[in-house]
């Protein structure tokens, strides 16, 4: 019973770790480039979920000063939110770059299969 209540209590962190593993594995194993990109996004947002869940404190509210209350006991930790905000923008930029590479590779080889592309690239003369 104790284990289950602990599992439920740490639900976000456990979910984040499992999603991270899922994304990491698919980033390594998926052959399709589009799916690789989705895997990368899943992996990154899992890390962000982990970080955001670290900032949450039961019973406190979002860090926007309301009614002039300046007591840090009232609001949750604002730092994880700020870090995740930075992270989201980085991840969408990388996604765009990755997609652009995919489009160009499709234009050259007419496929989006990573292994096939790598075979063809290795055969390519300088």
């Amino acid at each position, binding site marked *: 019973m104790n284990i289950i209540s*602990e599992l439920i*209590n*740490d*639900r976000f*962190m*456990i979910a984040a*770790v*499992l999603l*991270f*593993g899922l994304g*990491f*594995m698919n980033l*390594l*194993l998926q*052959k*399709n480039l589009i*799916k690789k990109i989705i895997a990368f996004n899943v992996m990154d947002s899992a890390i962000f979920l982990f970080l955001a*869940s*670290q900032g*949450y*404190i*039961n019973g*406190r509210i*979002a*860090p*926007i*000063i309301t009614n002039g209350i*300046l*007591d*840090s*006991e009232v*609001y949750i*930790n*604002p*730092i*994880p*939110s*700020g*870090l995740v*905000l*930075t992270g*989201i*923008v*980085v991840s969408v*930029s*990388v996604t*765009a*770059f990755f*997609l*652009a590479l995919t*489009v*160009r590779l*499709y*234009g050259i080889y*007419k*496929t*989006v*299969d990573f*292994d*096939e592309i790598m075979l063809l690239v290795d055969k390519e003369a300088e």
Partner: protein
Amino acid sequence: MNTEIGFFKRLNDWVNGDEDRIFPSKNEYDSPELPEPPVAKSSLPNKDILFLSSYQVIAITVVLGLVFVLLYTVYKLPLFGVADNPAVNEVVERYVEKGLEETGAVNVVAGMILDYRAFDTLGESSVLLLAITSVMMLLLRDEKNIDPEEDLITEHEAVFEDQSRDVILQNVTTILLPAIMLYGIYVILNGHLSPGGGFSGGAILGAGLILYATGFGHNRVRKFFSMKTFRALTTTALLSYGLLKSYSFLLGANHLPTHIPLGIPGAIFSSGLIFVLDICVGLIVACTMYGFYAVFSRGEI
């Protein structure tokens, strides 16, 4: 004709959009001359799932190991949602209790990312510049990036789109666009007062521009948002961001006051630089997002 298809098979087909097997009929949209769409299956010899390659075995082992290690770490970490975890310390206290006085921002997160830890955010905006530059490097039309077949299709589509615009889309756009734009501007201008800020508001503005471009065609957008405007806006916003922040960094490090008034907390024109920076970031993000769309779909802005 095989009518005995299992329920899950049919569900799977339905999810995948294969209606043929559920409602067998002649598909009138068949166009055999185009290449087979790339589905997720590889055309390489497909190995049985039981005989994984050594690379797959290594990858799966590594990932499983990593996940177990991380789960064990989570078990050792402080509990979720309790107030006495190590992350709640004097840093958080000052951000919340002095933030309003020192940065003038009611939204503590905005105060943190644009004033306390502004160097990270400057880096983040440069990432956007790098992303749009590298995408343009790859996808802009030039002599190494030419596909006559692709160009023909794009040209046909452009003609087709100009002749028969989608009425529903256009009317919906006319109704929705002002609301979207207004909301984006609201989110940007209230970045220091309410949730949101430059990044989310900029993304909303960018999405609005994209909607306009899909509804009314690229040429309508290009009348007021050409490559020149795009370049001027992005560079000006980014440069003023960089210069303003450099000014504040250098003066701050030398313990000099910046002489920027913080205004009355809660008013729209308050919190000093944060207000201006939010506008700059909003412009950068909006231009970048529309730039991504335009370069991806046509290879030009």
